[in-house]
């Protein structure tokens, strides 16, 4: 049962094959048994989940046909959930019980979904391996010695291990797509502004975007229908009608022009990953698409530009964590300065501190023009590269990550870690929609294929991804993840 997709579970609920309460209990049992090892969940909301499930069953009985009604989901612990601890993977917020719901959470609640719990993540979304979390690293269900990717590692691992059927994530430089690739599932990041950031704890305001983490493009489309839409409480939220993202899934790919960026198949790309992606591209040709070689000439600048802009914005976004009004406060502060210094030194982990320092430096007098302003100008060039490319092609396809999941503790050099996002980061800088879908294996570990479309072309992206998943079965592969005694 847990191995099914959202669409399949929705059917099972409607057919009476199962109930939301039964389904929810089923997932809770699996979490109970598996989470100690996997560490995908920080908080499990057993009581609340069952209460929501009962209400959902009532709604279903009354004939409610919302596609996610009664379906259990997990929220990345970056989304404020009213009355539930919201930690953002940090000691700084380990005691923070949110007094309100993020818009994303409200939308799922209104649609009748059931919240199983809050998933683990890199601290303040800063990381590409889910190793910076105050609550310990998350393991990859395909190989427990390896990372699931980050920063939405908990959500990805939970979906891959069937500890939920759907999860929310956030993506600032690749934090939905890269863990999806490492865990062999589907991770979708919509255009900037498509989904509300209200209640989504801010890392880098002009780059952060929420998105679905699930088992298929179809499931992602179902989730997008719930998540997307204008929210007046978020001034960067876009006033564009939300189409039915499931409507165009079956469109033929005949005549589709696929851009293959030279820069994404260069040095540093693992051979098996490249093979898998190139095989995937052949699949697209079989489906009627044409491949076009394209250039993203400023691609090599994307990581540098990102690691100026994102930390700069983060350095300001994290200033509010000072021990004054909520969250962690150091013991017995002597005076104000002592309280600030010790609260922030003790409350934040190393990677967060590193980025705050970098960001503060990049904004400081005498350096602002050379770093922050320059990076924002480069950003425009990067966006222009994409706009130029989309004059010739409809979607751009390449690898999500240069290699498959690496071992825990393998990347101790922060800069080496930053290069993990080399294919995904430009998409955030450009504000475009991107998705990672399973495309094969490298040494027994999942390989993700990365697809990018133009501004607000989510429907097309989901269509292309879905057609690939109709023609292949990579996305149906499951890790050999055993849950002892009493599992389903």
């Amino acid at each position, binding site marked *: 049962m847990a191995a099914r997709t959202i669409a399949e579970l929705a059917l099972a609920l409607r057919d009476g094959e199962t109930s939301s309460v039964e389904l929810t209990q089923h997932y809770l049992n699996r979490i109970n048994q598996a989470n100690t090892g996997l560490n995908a969940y920080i908080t499990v909301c057993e009581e609340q989940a069952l209460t929501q499930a009962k209400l959902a069953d009532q709604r279903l009985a009354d004939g409610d046909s919302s596609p996610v009604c009664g379906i259990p989901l997990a929220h990345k612990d970056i989304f404020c959930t009213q009355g539930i601890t919201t930690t953002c993977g940090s000691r700084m917020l380990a005691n923070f019980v949110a007094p309100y719901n993020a818009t994303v959470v409200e939308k799922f609640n209104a649609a009748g979904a059931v919240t199983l719990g809050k998933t683990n993540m890199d601290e303040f979304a800063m990381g590409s391996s889910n190793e910076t979390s105050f609550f310990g690293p998350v393991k990859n269900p395909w190989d427990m010695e390896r990372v699931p990717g980050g920063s939405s590692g908990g959500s990805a691992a939970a979906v891959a291990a069937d500890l939920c059927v759907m999860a929310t994530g956030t993506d600032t430089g690749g934090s939905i797509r890269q863990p999806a690739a490492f865990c062999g599932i589907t991770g979708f990041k919509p255009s900037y502004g498509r989904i509300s950031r209200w209640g989504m704890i801010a890392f880098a305001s002009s780059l952060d975007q929420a998105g679905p983490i699930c088992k298929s493009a179809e499931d992602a489309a179902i989730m997008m229908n719930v998540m997307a839409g204008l929210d007046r409480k978020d001034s960067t939220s876009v006033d564009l009608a939300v189409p039915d993202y499931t409507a165009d899934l079956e469109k033929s790919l005949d005549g589709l022009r696929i851009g293959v960026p030279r820069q994404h198949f260069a040095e540093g790309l693992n051979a098996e990953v490249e093979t898998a992606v190139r095989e995937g591209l052949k699949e697209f040709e079989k489906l009627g698409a044409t491949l076009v070689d394209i250039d993203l000439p400023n691609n090599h600048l994307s990581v540098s530009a990102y690691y100026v802009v994102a930390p700069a914005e983060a350095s300001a976004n994290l200033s509010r964590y000072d021990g*004054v009004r909520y969250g962690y406060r150091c013991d017995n502060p002597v005076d104000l300065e002592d309280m600030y210094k010790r609260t922030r030194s003790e409350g934040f982990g190393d990677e967060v501190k590193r980025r705050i320092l970098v960001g503060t430096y990049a904004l400081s007098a005498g350096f*602002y023009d050379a770093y922050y302003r320059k990076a924002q100008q480069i950003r425009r060039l990067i966006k222009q590269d994409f706009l130029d490319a989309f004059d010739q092609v409809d979607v751009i396809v390449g690898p999500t990550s240069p290699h498959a999941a690496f071992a825990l503790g393998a990347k101790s050099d922060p800069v080496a870690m930053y290069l993990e996002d080399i294919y995904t980061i430009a998409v955030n800088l450009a504000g475009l929609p991107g998705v990672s879908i399973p495309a094969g294996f490298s040494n027994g570990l999942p390989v993700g294929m990365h697809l990018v479309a133009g501004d607000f072309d989510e429907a097309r992206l989901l269509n292309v991804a879905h057609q690939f998943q109709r023609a292949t079965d990579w996305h149906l592969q499951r890790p050999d993840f055993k849950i002892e005694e009493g599992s389903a």
Partner: protein
Amino acid sequence: MSWETVIGLEVHVQLSTQSKLFSGTSTKFGAEPNTQANIYDLALPGTLPVMNEAALAMAVRFGLAINAEIGKKSVFDRKNYFYPDLPKGYQVSQLHYPIVGLGSLTVTLEDGTERVIGVTRAHMEEDAGKSLHEDFHGMTGIDLNRAGTPLLEIVSEPDLRNAKEAVAYLKKLHSIIRYLDISDGNMAQGSMRCDANVSIRRVGDTELGTRTEIKNINSFKFVEKAINYEVMRQREILEDGGRIVQETRLYDSDLNETRSMRSKEVANDYRYFPEPDLLPVVIDDQYIESVRASLPELPDQKSERFATEFGLSHYDAGVLVSSREMAEFFERVVEICGDAKLSANWVTGDLLGLLNKNNWEFADSPIDAERLGTLIARIKDKTISGKIAKTVFEAMIEDQDDVDAIIDKKGLKQVTDSGAIESLIDEVITNNPDQVQQFRDGKEAVFGYLVGQAMKLSKGKANPAQVNQILRDKLK
């Protein structure tokens, strides 16, 4: 050595919107601490700003009132620093692209001369909360009710040359914001705050001297004193061969001196960058014109109109328009009694005197425009004399009854019956034979004495003009 003073004023005006600049929390004054601060104001994780359009409209109104360039695309920036009354650890302000650009206003000095003072810019920003040190025994209490209230920061060009000009500029600014009704403009309560940048240089020098910033000035009077003190302080230093340290100084009104607060040379680096949670504010000509259409008549225009329409002197007109409340009060009085000159005298004289003595605003006046207008109307229709009117006025302070009722109650109606006046005068002539004889012998001055006696006999109620006329007739 001849020194020239150069002053620039930075005025922060709290805009009187109903809710804060970026959140829907009430801005009402006087609430219990921390009862007017929502999750955005408290900077809880995940909260985001949404701009209050009413604040934008107020800022544009101000810009139009000072004939300034209006920023059609203005941008909010984050100004970063740590302080417990600044919950986010940054203030959302506007740096390079303010909503209002270069403008000016005209100031009339005490001697009647006019000076045009430039306004460099005005921008919107969030107010911080309040830090309360008393009552907390070695700690500080933070009240965030004020955090997030919209401010308009108005920066003048360094065009002011002495303390009196600075005060005149401040008063004109205050008058404008009151006319526009965009702020209470109350310096004592903090809805209008003034910082003064002061420097001096030798007459003839084109370069500006090192300036200091004076803070903690909370009345017009203290603005003048603080500036004068600072100018003197700087003169002494420079004449002694010393140098001015560029710094922020606090004005102490008890000791009438300024004291060093912090050196501006090692000032905070605010690390400004454009606010990524807000889009640039883009407004078009249509919007600007719709705001312009909503502007009330401003002091300068009103003053001109009072002079031409009502035939008032520029001085009188100037006094009347110095506050919107007074100007409107005056117009209402004229509406009722039809005599602008008399109204001007009564409003700027007796009424203003009464209000100032008791520290009342026009809104608190025990004598409203209707009653004052009626009082003057009774002078004009000769029900009472101007002199008796003063007595009625005094009675009207305590007694809220209408004017006619008070005149009746006190029996102050002017006597205009010629028969009655004739008998009065007959009595006076009978009782003052010597003075009558002196007048008939040519001593004109004694006439006034006889008039006075008649008035006294009538307890002031006889119509003076009639008394004059009838007495003269009888003495022929």
